[in-house]
């Protein structure tokens, strides 16, 4: 059972998103970076599947040279090796270009004798939120895909997929090979152990530099949402404010 997980490096935004002067990016000089949350659960699930069924787990990212940090993080959690599609720091790849580069990498693995039975994506990336790279890859590979999953169970050449919907979970049952996109809450990702981190430093990363096609969803500029800042009315300080709060709750009609 060979499993591929595609992840994206994204900044950890704090209380307020600040843009660069040219409005093309988020000012990240004071921010840390992480694997986009949904995909971290994909990594955990892939590690569990390979622990249970054997095979190999591979993590892939398309990102700047610094994205090696996220690949090492994923390998510290137990992924066996990594594929790094290296792009420039200020390059902006749209979903179509990203999917094409990932497909080329999957094809290269195939040529080298490795075929993936299951490919994980996040349901949507934290930053650009396009909801489509996984679907584009699945379509090009002519493989079935289920999206937005909070349950993934591999058994006897099939994958049972659970999608949270109001009042319950819808179930899709797909034959392998398949593609899935997952959401945070799928599992509880483990913390990397110190030995895990040390092993990750020695695991192989295959790097290559794909060439971007011109963006067809072309970013013009980023804008902060207008007029959301409010001046909160201070009801009081400490427990003495309780009567004012209850008055408010009564006024709203929920007390």
């Amino acid at each position, binding site marked *: 059972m060979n499993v591929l997980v595609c992840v994206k490096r994204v900044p950890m935004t704090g209380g307020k998103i600040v843009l660069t002067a040219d409005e093309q990016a988020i000012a990240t000089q004071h921010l840390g970076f992480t694997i986009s949350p949904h995909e971290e659960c994909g990594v955990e699930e892939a590690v569990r599947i390979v622990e249970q069924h054997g095979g190999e787990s591979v993590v892939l990212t398309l990102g700047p040279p610094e994205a090696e940090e996220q690949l090492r993080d994923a390998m510290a959690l137990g992924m066996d090796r990594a594929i790094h599609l290296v792009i420039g720091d200020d390059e902006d790849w749209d979903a179509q270009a990203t999917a094409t580069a990932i497909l080329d990498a999957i094809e290269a693995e195939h040529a080298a004798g490795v075929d993936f039975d299951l490919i994980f994506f996040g349901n949507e990336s934290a930053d650009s939120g396009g909801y489509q790279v996984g679907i584009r890859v699945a379509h090009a590979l002519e493989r*079935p895909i289920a999206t937005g999953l909070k349950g993934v169970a591999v058994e006897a050449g099939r994958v049972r997929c*659970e999608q949270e919907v109001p009042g319950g*979970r*819808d179930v899709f049952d*797909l034959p392998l090979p398949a593609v899935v996109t997952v959401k945070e809450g799928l599992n509880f990702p483990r913390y990397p152990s110190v030995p895990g981190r040390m092993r990750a430093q020695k695991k192989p990363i295959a790097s290559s530099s794909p060439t971007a096609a011109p963006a067809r*969803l072309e970013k013009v500029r980023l*804008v902060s949402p207008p007029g959301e*800042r409010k001046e909160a009315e201070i009801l009081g300080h*400490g427990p003495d404010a309780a009567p004012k709060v209850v008055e408010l709750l009564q006024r709203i009609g929920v007390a």
Partner: protein
Amino acid sequence: MSVLVVVEREPGGVDELSLQALALARTLAQGASIEALAVTPPSDTVSQGVAATLGEHGVSTLHVAEHAVFGSYAPTAVAQAAVELAERLQPAAIVGAGTERGNEVLAHIAARLDLPLAANCIAAASGDPARVTRLRWGGSLLEEADVHGAPTLLTVAPHLVTAERAPAGEAAVEHFAPTLSEADQLVRVTDRAEDDTAGGVSLADAKVVVSSGRGAGSPEGFGIIEELADLLGGAVGCSRAVTMAGWRPHTDQVGQTGTKIAPDIYIACGISGATQHMAGCKGAKTILAVNTDPQAPILASADYAVIGDLHEVVPAISAELRKARQT
């Protein structure tokens, strides 16, 4: 050049988010006709009410794709039906609601047509290229973007475009049977697992949500949060830091990667207001923040605030509520 809208139905009518999608579709159409696509199994019928509602929202023709696979949700089959219809209508744009399913179906259409897709738009202007404004970071940031190629494919972000009526009379209804391959029909819902946690108030639908973050101090620290939520008949929420620490289940998490809530009042106790969290509570009608730090980012989004330690303030609110109910 018409605009084709993939609509989602709900029992007895049209999903509100599809009506919002129709409103944005009309700005793209600039007076050209609005065509709608709905899918149904042959055993079922699309009620006259649906055609009437769609007509009130500017739809001239409702195209109903009939196929046995539509007895349950089948994303690739819906996408293929839309592609077949689009070949016939040659629309200038194909629009869906920015629901999980709308985004999924439109992404399948985009993959099939090898075209870009702009997900979660709040504004759109036709042209070559089309210009859209769309959500990034769960709505904490906006992006203006050009969408190259035709037809323009986009989904409409939930609850940010008003569903206005634009009476065009009752929509005409035309049925067709799409040609679907076995592969198109492979992915579909085959089973439903009912929620076994029923009984409590669901976070997404609760009128009152009381939440806390790491400021609760421990899993036990949520006792006072649960007490206040119970008193108000509400649900308990939490920040991502809390679920990452393992204090609460992910189902309690409010935020961009958790549950999006829309209560009458959101009482956020010891929540700093990270963008990841605020993306999940934008729908709250009123936000009350309880925080020791008057400079906390959440105060820029809150309507009311109590400055103080949640461990003192929350029990005092519960006690005051009980007192008020006795008199």
